[in-house]
């Protein structure tokens, strides 16, 4: 069977997760079960990123946040070492 293509929603979740792991010290969760527990951590990290970029601090992966996450940038994290 053809590999089910990623839904836009899943794609966006991946963009957000990847970005927060790289630049905001979001722990890498291996198992989906861990990911459910981590929802509140992701929201907090998302708010931290939105505050840094002066976006509306919604904790949600809104269009502006996703647009910012896809801009070319430096690989050094925005917070922490």
């Amino acid at each position, binding site marked *: 069977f053809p590999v089910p293509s990623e839904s836009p929603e899943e794609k966006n979740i991946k963009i957000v997760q990847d970005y927060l792991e790289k630049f905001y010290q979001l722990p890498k969760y291996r198992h989906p079960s861990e990911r459910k527990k981590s929802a509140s951590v992701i929201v907090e990290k998302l708010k931290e990123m939105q505050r840094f970029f002066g976006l509306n601090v919604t904790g949600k992966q809104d269009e502006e946040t996703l647009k910012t996450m896809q801009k070319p940038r*430096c*690989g*050094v994290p*925005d917070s922490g070492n």
Partner: protein
Amino acid sequence: FMLTPGHPKWKHTNLTYRIINQTTNLTNDVVERYIEEAFQLWKNASSLNITRVLQGEADIKIAFFQRDHGDNSPFDGPNGILAHAFQPGPGIGGDVHFDAEEMWTNTSKDYNLYLVAAHEFGHSLGLSHSTDPGALMYPTYSFHEPSTYVLPQDDINGIQAIYGPADRPVQPTGPTTPTACDPRLTFDAVTTLRGEILFFKDKYFWRKHPQVRRVELNFISLFWPTLPDGIQAAYEDFYRDVVIVFKGKQYWALSGYDIQQGYPKDILNYGFPSSVHAIDAAASYRGKTYFFVNNQFWRYDDQRQSMDPGYPKSIASTFQGIGSRVDAVFQRDDVFFFFSGPIHYAFDFRYQRITKVERNNRWLNC
């Protein structure tokens, strides 16, 4: 600005750098010149002395790598992450890595090596990312013309917080990013653009979209790399679907992100006398374009493409209540919004009178 956690810094101020390898996109001498000039930005603002060595150990080693290159921070191919650097320290400390798979350029095309190098060297010297969108140490890439680039004040403050003032009689200063809610905020030029409103200020513009609450601050150079900073007037020509922007005696036609061919042109083309050296403000209304210069204004007929007879007239004679000189103006729904100092006046053309007076930054949700 932000200092790297733990405030790492170089204990010695005579630093060395070495270019380990080169990119295939640019000739070696361009890379070497760009890297030297990027370090010069930081040297000018501090007491640091940074010189190149051609072999052996160096504090700051510069290299182009791709994908996984052994430092636990793999690159991701074209776009995305462009480069990274390590905080001051021995070994890999201070080193700068560029993603070899990026298209490195010495033009406004993505990505100009000079700007990325200057940013990464900030990390090599102990700076983290700044939340100031106008700062060099802001995390996302924006093009600026390297030949006219000046280190922003935020970055000067940052490097001097680590290494102290520059050892010279006059401390360097740089541009500061305008803050939307500064009650004294003035605009250089304002225009509509396909339903949005653009507020120009220095090297920036705020972009206000009718459906989006947050007003976005951008560099002019991010959208129109070859346009100069300090635009003085702008108006939207609705029929041609272009925005005309003015600086001094020159003007450009913007079609979305593109600058039309054959610009800049001279404002003499509009029929101004040679005594007019710059336009303060401009707005288009019902086939006529109004140009404001000092305390007078001209009216230009868009169809006939010439100035209407009997102009210039005094602004006060036609727009009662509007002071002698305006900074900017735009027209929407029969209302001319005149910006003068930190205040703007809504002049309703149908009733020939001012209907509202407010602070400029009301437009920026303040």
